[in-house]
């Protein structure tokens, strides 16, 4: 119950901040009307859009409409803002989800091997990858991939939205940074777990190295890994903006960036509220997953 109240407060706060900020940036009527329009024309349009009223009244109206699921009409697209934002979510979620899967599939096993044999080949290559991954911006990696795989080797389409072949490169470029972070974190947490007494006890029992690593060490290292992964999801959605631009991927990020530059208040507001709800949902899933994994976090025990 307290969590729910906290979530609602988070959404309210995020919407309030963006509501005020976007209105400080500029007046959309300048962009909506041709340059030769008069001040009277603009005043009329402001009145029509309800922008002439005090900000407090505007926000109250916004909240009231929000309760009914109405977030107003987009200034530039002339259609309801919320369905517009939601319609752009699937490609972005697909991109971020695929990137996330790749990051986990790459970073976790690699980090595990690096922790198992410090200074072994997995650890050495892993260190190089971690530096490259955390210093190479996703859009740059994306450009390199296009040059290499599409232009030189003609293996994958350069850009666009369609089947899996369109997804591979942007997702990989996006996952690069998170994979490097996951590798480092997995290595660190598994290394720490391997030093603990319960690992020694498992070895004393005669448990094989593989079972010690997977059943005991990885499971205990899983909590920070899961928390980190879910926090990366937000970052992934954020950096998806540049990747969506590089690969011409029609997504949520591109929509919001366009909306900001066009001062399309309603779309930006709808986007922020949707993003906030998304993050809260992801955090909730993370907490549930952690509680399922660690009996000490479980409520009521």
């Amino acid at each position: 119950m307290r969590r729910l109240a906290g979530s609602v407060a988070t959404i309210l706060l995020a919407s309030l901040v963006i509501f005020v900020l976007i209105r400080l940036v500029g007046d959309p009527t300048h962009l909506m009307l041709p340059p030769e329009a008069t001040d009277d024309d603009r005043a009329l349009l402001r009145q029509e859009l309800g922008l002439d009223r005090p900000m407090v009244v505007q926000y109250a109206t916004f909240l009231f409409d929000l309760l009914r699921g109405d977030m107003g009409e987009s200034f530039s697209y002339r259609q309801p803002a919320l369905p517009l934002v939601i319609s752009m979510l699937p490609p972005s979620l697909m991109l971020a989800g695929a990137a996330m899967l790749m990051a986990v599939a790459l970073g976790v096993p690699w980090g595990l091997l690096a922790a198992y044999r410090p200074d072994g080949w997995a650890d050495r290559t892993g260190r190089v990858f971690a530096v490259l991954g955390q210093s190479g911006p996703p859009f740059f990696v994306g450009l390199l991939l296009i040059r290499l795989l599409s232009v030189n080797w003609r293996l994958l389409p350069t850009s666009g939205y369609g089947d899996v072949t369109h997804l591979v490169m942007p997702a990989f470029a996006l996952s690069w940074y998170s994979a490097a972070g996951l590798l480092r974190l997995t290595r660190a947490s598994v290394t720490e777990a391997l030093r603990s007494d319960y690992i020694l006890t498992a070895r004393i029992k005669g448990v094989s190295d593989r079972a010690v690593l997977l059943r005991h060490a990885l499971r205990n290292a899983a909590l920070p890994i899961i928390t980190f992964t879910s926090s990366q999801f937000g970052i992934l959605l954020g950096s998806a903006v540049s990747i969506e631009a590089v690969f011409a991927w029609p997504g949520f990020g591109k929509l919001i960036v366009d909306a900001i530059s066009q001062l399309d208040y309603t779309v930006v507001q709808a986007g922020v509220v949707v993003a906030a709800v998304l993050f809260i949902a992801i955090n909730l899933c993370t907490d549930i997953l952690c509680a399922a994994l660690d009996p000490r976090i479980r409520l009521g025990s």
Partner: protein
Amino acid sequence: MSPLLHVETLRIAAGPHAPALVDGISLELDRGKALGLVGESGAGKTLACLALLRLLPEGLHIQDGRIRLDGQELTALTDTEMRRLRGGRIGMVLQNPLSSLNPLMRIGDQIGEAFAVHRGVRWRTALWKLAVEALRAVRIPTPEQRVSAYAHQFSGGMRQRVAITMNIACAPDLLIADEPTTALDATIRLQVLRLLGDIRRERRMALILVTHDLPMVARFCDDVAVMYAGRIVERGPVEAIFANPAHPYTRGLIGATPRLDGRRRLATIAGQPPSPGSIASGCAFASRCDVADAGCRQGRIDLLDLGEQRAAACRKPFARPPAEAAA
């Protein structure tokens, strides 16, 4: 009959030329007997025990020596053979029962793991059934309910019982208990020790009890080995050594033990134990010894047979300082 465990000149160090942390210790232990391994922190007690399991910390190795269990040379076994021996024939209980249990695994699964590894039992229901029996054997009340609990739901004493259960589940010939009661309440200590004693008698299991606690050794062990700076300085039957210690260090340890009658002032041993490699020659204890002379600081002083199964690494066994001798 040959002893169950026979350790000869075991030497542990980080490399062939690095200072030895355990410097050529030799031990014998018969089936069903209990050996107390005592000494200050850092004397090499735990390392010596981990070496028996070939589970030394990263970077440390057995440089020299032989370890035979039932005539089988452990240092020559492959990793897989050694793994079968661990938990199967040798068990070890660690000092802190909370950290030695996996916080995310149910107790039944952790005990069951031993049966899965050593008896090839596959199914969880079968493993839990065995775990319940094992818990019942260490007198955990309502074991049927406790198998599904987690470590944090147990009290300290119960946790140590669970840890003991895990390690004796497959009836090992030798159990090493590394300060098994140090982390426990005083009232629980005796219970845990009695439990270890009972199990030892019932199963004819040999026990190595690592401890600082001399009265505990006097009460629960047959033999005692005193370690100082990586070496055994005195060993023999408990009664004989406690009645009349041969090595000045053993005498100091016994003198530093509080007694209930409280008539005698508690003695201390002045100074600190030397760090590994800092003693070039002579007896490592010479600088703290109250009977040492110039001869004690030269050459290598090996264990000297004193008869009655006793041995001490001292040039002047049974010597007393002049003041005490006069009194």
